[in-house]
């Protein structure tokens, strides 16, 4: 029963997001508003309220963040904003928090595995890179991510062609996706190009 009431409300939120998008003229503001639209879109999926809905939200989330990532980079190139920011914020907690907080998130993410784990662990790494700066780990992480993608594809075909090895496949898939998502998210942190670059 709740669906019939909740759906119109969520659609109103979608409409608000698009009205905002309609009257907004600034390019960067538009980019930010896409995030709002994304949230309302996910809300429609969330209303379905089955396990399937949940399995659909996860890809939806990843699609949103990847498009945001690509577009933000296009925006920077388009506007010619190539120089790194001159002064970077530094707080006391940025010395102390990342090691523990990032560590907890990464460990928990590895326990979770799969998409969710990848996002959580990626956030942990990203936070660490954000606070500590980074060295040139770019290539290695990217390679690892590529292999993990291949691992996941292999797992997919095991599921489809040789389902009796499902246990192996589920492990490979969980691990592959974890590494893949985590690596990509972490790399965002190194792409900040703040100090130590």
């Amino acid at each position, binding site marked *: 029963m709740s669906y019939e009431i909740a759906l119109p409300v969520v659609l109103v939120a979608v409409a608000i997001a698009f009205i905002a998008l309609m009257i907004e003229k600034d390019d960067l503001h538009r980019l930010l508003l896409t995030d709002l639209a994304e949230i309302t879109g996910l809300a429609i999926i969330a209303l379905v309220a089955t396990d399937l809905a949940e399995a659909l939200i996860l890809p939806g989330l990843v699609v949103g963040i990847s498009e945001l990532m690509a577009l933000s980079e296009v925006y920077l190139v388009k506007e010619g904003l190539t120089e790194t920011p001159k002064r970077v914020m530094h707080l*006391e*907690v940025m010395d102390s928090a990342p090691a523990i907080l990032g560590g907890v998130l990464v460990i928990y993410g590895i326990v979770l595995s799969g998409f969710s784990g990848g996002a959580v662990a990626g956030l942990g790494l990203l936070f660490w890179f954000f606070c500590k700066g980074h060295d040139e780990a770019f290539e290695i992480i990217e390679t690892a991510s590529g292999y993990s993608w291949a691992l996941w594809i292999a797992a997919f075909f095991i599921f489809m062609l040789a389902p009796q090895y499902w246990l192996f496949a589920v492990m490979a898939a969980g691990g592959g996706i974890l590494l893949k998502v985590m690596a990509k998210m972490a790399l965002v942190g190194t792409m900040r190009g703040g100090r130590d670059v």
Partner: protein
Amino acid sequence: MAELIALYICGVIALFAALRCLIEKDTYLKLPYLNVMNFAVAGIIVLVLNHPLSLLAAVAYFVGSTLEANAIASAKAGGVQND
């Protein structure tokens, strides 16, 4: 019964602190009120669900929000100014 009384107290104090926090004009002076609300909410978390893990949740929430308050105050104050 004792939990209920404690819950009522925590709830009322949380609401009170949240209200004062939102009414207060100055950013720095908001933070102590926020702190009181964090105490109350951490208490509520434990009282709502009596389980060892909810202690972890309460601590995580408390530390997290303290960290947040710390970061906000420090950022407003200008952070570390030595670079």
